[in-house]
């Protein structure tokens, strides 16, 4: 099984498309860091005052590595699913397109092993992309701009002492990993249904876009449906930047996200075990 996971990782990391996400983040974050550094506090304060109706005035320098890490995470996180599905949507369909199921599935390995290895490899890719974001947005920002108190706006303004910040980032990244793993698993499921990577990529993105729009529409009639849209939970990582943290909501969201992942994995397994390999 370990050999199979290693093989799946080799397949992922020897493809050009895998690095699109890494390159995009590698370009965007240093640019954002540079822009924020150049703008200084003015830019961020003007954003906050717009949100608070010009009633907010900050004192002292809150432009530090933590703030940059938060802003870049908040800004890039919305686009992260796009980068995840590029690889997640390719996990099965690339084998169909290339006809390589015929050499893979005629070896003494079970289909359960194949599905599980691909699933784990997809999760490892998601983790590696998020780790890259973590390194650039938090570690690099910290190295360049140092630490300090973190002032953020999540529904309202919170200010956290510098020694109260790092664990929040770790927890937020942990939750973000769960929700992005769900996106990856959704693309993985679609990928098992079709024979080219374009379909699963577009289908996953379409679902995310539609669900996100439905989640944001201000109609009460949709309120009862919102808990069933998985996109509702995608940005619950922000809960770790509130005080006090609503752990009941965090746990509830995490359970829902994990349930989605398990159900999607089982659906994929069922589909793949029944599938006739005709390509």
């Amino acid at each position, binding site marked *: 099984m370990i050999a199979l996971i290693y093989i799946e990782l080799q397949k992922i990391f020897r*493809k050009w498309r895998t690095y699109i996400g890494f390159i995009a983040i590698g370009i965007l974050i240093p640019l954002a860091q540079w822009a924020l550094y150049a703008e200084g506090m003015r830019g961020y304060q003007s954003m906050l005052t717009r949100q608070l109706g010009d009633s907010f005035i900050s004192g002292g320098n809150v432009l530090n590595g933590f703030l940059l890490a938060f802003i870049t995470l908040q800004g890039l996180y919305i686009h992260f699913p796009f980068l995840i599905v590029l690889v997640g949507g390719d996990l099965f369909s690339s084998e169909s397109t*290339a*006809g390589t199921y015929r050499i893979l599935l005629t070896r003494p390995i079970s289909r359960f092993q194949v599905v599980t290895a691909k699933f784990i490899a997809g999760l490892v890719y998601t983790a590696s992309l998020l780790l890259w974001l973590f390194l650039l947005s938090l570690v690099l920002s910290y190295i360049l701009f140092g630490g300090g108190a973190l002032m953020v706006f999540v529904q309202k303004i919170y200010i956290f002492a510098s020694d109260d910040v790092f664990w929040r980032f770790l927890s937020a990244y942990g939750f973000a990993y769960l929700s992005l793993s769900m996106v990856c698993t959704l693309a993985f499921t679609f990928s098992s249904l079709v024979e080219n990577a374009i379909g699963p990529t577009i289908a996953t993105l379409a679902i995310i876009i539609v669900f996100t729009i439905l989640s944001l529409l201000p109609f009460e009639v949709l309120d009862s449906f919102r808990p069933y849209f998985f996109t509702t939970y995608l940005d619950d990582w922000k809960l770790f930047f509130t005080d006090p943290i609503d752990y009941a909501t965090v746990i509830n969201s995490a359970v829902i996200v994990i349930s989605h992942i398990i159900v999607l994995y089982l659906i994929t397994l069922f589909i793949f075990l029944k599938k006739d*390999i005709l390509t």
Partner: protein
Amino acid sequence: MNSEKVIEVTGLTKKYKKLVAVNNLNLNVYKGDVFGFLGPNGAGKSTTIRMLLTLIKPTSGSIKIFGQELKPNRSNILSRIGAIVEKPDFYLYLSARKNLEILAKISGKEISKDKITEMLELVGLKDRENSKVKTFSHGMKQRLGIAQTLLHDPELIILDEPTTGLDPQGMKEIRDLIIFLSREKGKTIFLSSHILREIELIATRMIILNKGKTVIEGTVEDLLNSESLKVQIEVNDITKTLDLIKPTEWQLNYRSTEKSKIIFEIEKSKISGLTKFLINNDIEVSAVVPIRSLEDYFLRITEESSK
């Protein structure tokens, strides 16, 4: 013939809604056989091969390989089979060596790097081992397909059109390799090919499939010899020969004339009698060439079964 069955297929059927791709197929492949699997396009050959390799689930019927039911013993059985199914496809973005390394890791056996090198040398790809497969021609991929088939030293080798895309030299090399693997290494070969001459040259036993059904099964020699054969006899005097045979029973076997050659359709056992008759009547016979091959047989028998 060895009586140990390597493949035993009974009542194998595959249906796709109303389409019956394979219909109640029965076949036996014995240890050491080079088993020719023939049939026109759409006959159900690839579907059968895919069912033998668990890529497709049969609708009904039983498959036993190495005396074991395929489904519950899948892993054990597949570790003893090497196969090319249709065209040889690989991970194009990986090198030839990397592809073989990956397949070696999941072959169920310990395969050394030296073994991989040996296989690359065997198929003449050692010089290109580090080139990505996307730069390979179809023939090179076909050779790499042979290498991956033999990598784990399988007892049963299933080859679906193994010489497609190869030049004549390459085709001969593969044919020689199949003969070598069968005769010297004792491998059992299940060979599907559209090049019927190939089957005629290599196979010991064969089956002809049409519209998912078995048309005929047996040894290649018996199948060919059970039929009357067309021969082309080259003589020094066509007119005299035609006059000579006219009042005799040989006239019944006469078919046509082409330049200095006369074509007869005759049972194999009677060819010597015909040539003896001509020579005894002062006709010089310079050549006797059989022109009926498996191809004619195949075409005739599949046409008949289609009626």
